[in-house]
């Protein structure tokens, strides 16, 4: 490997400041929760340095949220903080990083490297920076990447004041692990292969280490839950077939836990109608089926709502100079008819401002469904972000 070059190279510094107001339509049901308005502020920095040769780069992305209602939602994280060396065929990086695997829209099943930052949102799109050492090679037979992850990140959970929470409060100080010495996780490993052959994109993945999804166990204090992160081994496959205006998507995992070995899958399509307006807007329609074979016993498996569910959605891209788009979707539980949905809209104003509207709602929720704790948590979020 080349020696570190002298400082010089290219610096790029940026930042974003977002102001957010989340409004809940109905009053809270759990003790301690606030009722209606949740204002908060998001701050993100972005510092990049690249050596003159382009071989070395350094990335720092600190993130903070300051929340007006829930002190657990007020938090800081390094989303990215890594040093990377890139050669013609090999890339090596060390530090905190974000990784995305997979193809599906309604559920990210094979995507396991990063822990979710669920105090941000429950949609599993916000991730904590994962400490890792990553080695990747690009060859004519595809890309192969190996990960060694020495430090575990615990999932974030909203506090007593927060909406969109379970009946109990999760205390991360009580977290226990199935691997290592119970109080802390061992080193995790992963391997990922990715390639495309004609109209097919293929991904294969392997993971061994602490599950990112904790089981939530009762503790010796009433209404306090203790997260337990099991030692798991998981194989994943993701496939996409792209033909004309069709995208066919499939993801599946097989996971071995101390209690069981189960499979889960998500698959479906996205079809686009191009140029539906004079100005050239595109409408995409999506449908995905979600299956999960894990135990429904909370003592044996982390709960999931996506066990036998159907997602139907639509995406409208205006293709205007402000990149205006709309997204809407509903997931229906095929066993009991419980539904959760979302509507999102986004547009740019001028060169530096983005306005987003997001609504999440729960309807027809069955008393026995996991979603029943969220039954009164339908909400709408208005976010205005300034880019610097």
């Amino acid at each position, binding site marked *: 490997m080349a020696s570190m070059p002298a400082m010089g190279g290219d610096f790029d510094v940026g930042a974003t400041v977002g102001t957010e107001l989340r409004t809940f339509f109905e009053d809270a049901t759990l003790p301690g929760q606030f009722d209606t308005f949740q204002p908060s502020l998001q701050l993100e920095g972005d510092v990049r340095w690249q050596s003159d040769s382009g071989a070395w780069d350094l990335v720092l992305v600190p993130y903070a949220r300051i929340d007006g209602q829930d002190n657990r939602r007020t938090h800081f994280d390094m989303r990215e903080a890594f040093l*990377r060396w890139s050669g013609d065929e090999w890339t090596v990086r060390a530090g905190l990083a974000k990784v995305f695997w997979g193809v599906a829209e309604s559920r990210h099943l094979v995507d396991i490297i990063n822990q979710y930052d669920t105090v941000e949102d429950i949609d599993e799109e916000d991730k904590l920076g994962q400490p890792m050492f990553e080695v990747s090679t690009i060859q004519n037979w595809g*890309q192969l990447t190996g990960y060694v992850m020495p430090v575990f990140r615990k999932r974030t959970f909203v506090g007593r004041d927060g909406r969109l929470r379970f009946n109990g409060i999760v205390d991360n100080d009580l977290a226990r692990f199935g691997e290592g010495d119970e109080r802390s996780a061992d080193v995790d490993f992963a391997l990922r292969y990715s390639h495309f052959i004609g109209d097919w*994109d293929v991904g294969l993945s392997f993971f061994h280490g602490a599950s990112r999804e904790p089981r939530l166990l009762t503790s010796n204090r009433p209404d306090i839950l203790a997260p337990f992160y099991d030692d798991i081994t998981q194989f994943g496959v993701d496939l996409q077939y792209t033909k004309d205006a069709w*995208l066919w998507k499939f993801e599946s995992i097989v996971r071995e836990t101390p209690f069981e070995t189960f499979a889960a899958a998500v698959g479906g399509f996205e079809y686009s109608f191009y140029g539906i307006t004079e100005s050239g807007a595109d409408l995409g329609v999506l449908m995905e089926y979600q299956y999960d074979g894990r135990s429904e016993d909370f003592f044996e498996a982390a709960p999931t709502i996506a066990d036998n569910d159907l997602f139907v959605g639509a995406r409208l891209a205006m293709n205007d*100079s402000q*990149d205006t788009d709309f997204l809407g979707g509903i997931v229906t539980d095929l066993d009991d008819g419980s539904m959760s949905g979302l509507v999102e809209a986004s547009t*740019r104003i001028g*060169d530096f401002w983005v306005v987003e509207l997001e609504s999440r709602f729960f309807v027809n929720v069955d008393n026995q469904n996991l979603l029943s704790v969220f039954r009164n948590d339908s909400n709408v979020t208005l976010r205005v972000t300034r880019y610097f």
Partner: protein
Amino acid sequence: MFSNRLNKFTKSVALAAMIGTGLSTAALGQTAEEKGFEIAARSDRSDTGFESSEVNAIMTLTNSAGRTSTRELYFKTLERENEDVGDKSLTVFETPRDVQGTALLSHAKILEADDQWLYLPALKRVKRISSANKSGPFVGSEFAFEDFTSTELNKYEYTYVGEDTFDGMTVDVVERTPRYENSGYVRQVSLIDQDVFQVRKIDFYDRKNSLLKTLTLSEYREYEGGVWRAHLLTMENHQTGKSTSIEYGDYAFKTGLADNDFVKGVLRRIR
């Protein structure tokens, strides 16, 4: 179907009339199709041999009220000399800030659908996308996807129309019709100068065969090895009154880019 055939019929009558009046030099035992292809090929091939190129650009969108917005981007291209396969290209946005690092990787084909991947830096997500959307607007501009991705010689059939003058130059007028599927154009009329064989202007006719857009290519410069590049492209939409210009910086050629720089795995390194 019928109107298409009728079009072809009237076109060939018009061409025959032109040849008859001696407007064309195609009388030397060469059909208008052969001559059209020859002129287009000479123009296309005058720009080959660059191996790879990198260039920065500023795109300015102007709406019908005259209000403008800009975006900065860069293009990397890997030339593939074989005219039966397309070039590989990478387009990366630098501004506006909210889409910084968004990238489009394209492996162009001649008549089949191109392979395309989109990179979304906020999620670190690489998405294979459909390339069937040829005629849709590229990032809200007056350029359609196909205006960028369908520049290969063999993506069209050509017909020589005649000679004209444009901007003080004597130009050959060549009509080209897309051979690939899903094009938004029934035909394009290009003006190619007779001096250095570069495309100076293209009129785009929509599926109803009415004039939709005009692309003007100017500020041509010759680089080492006789490679010519326009540094200002202006696309004017006659139906909406909107326009988009792309101003290119200095091109760098033979920059050492290889196939490995145009695979989906490199998208994650962008941002």
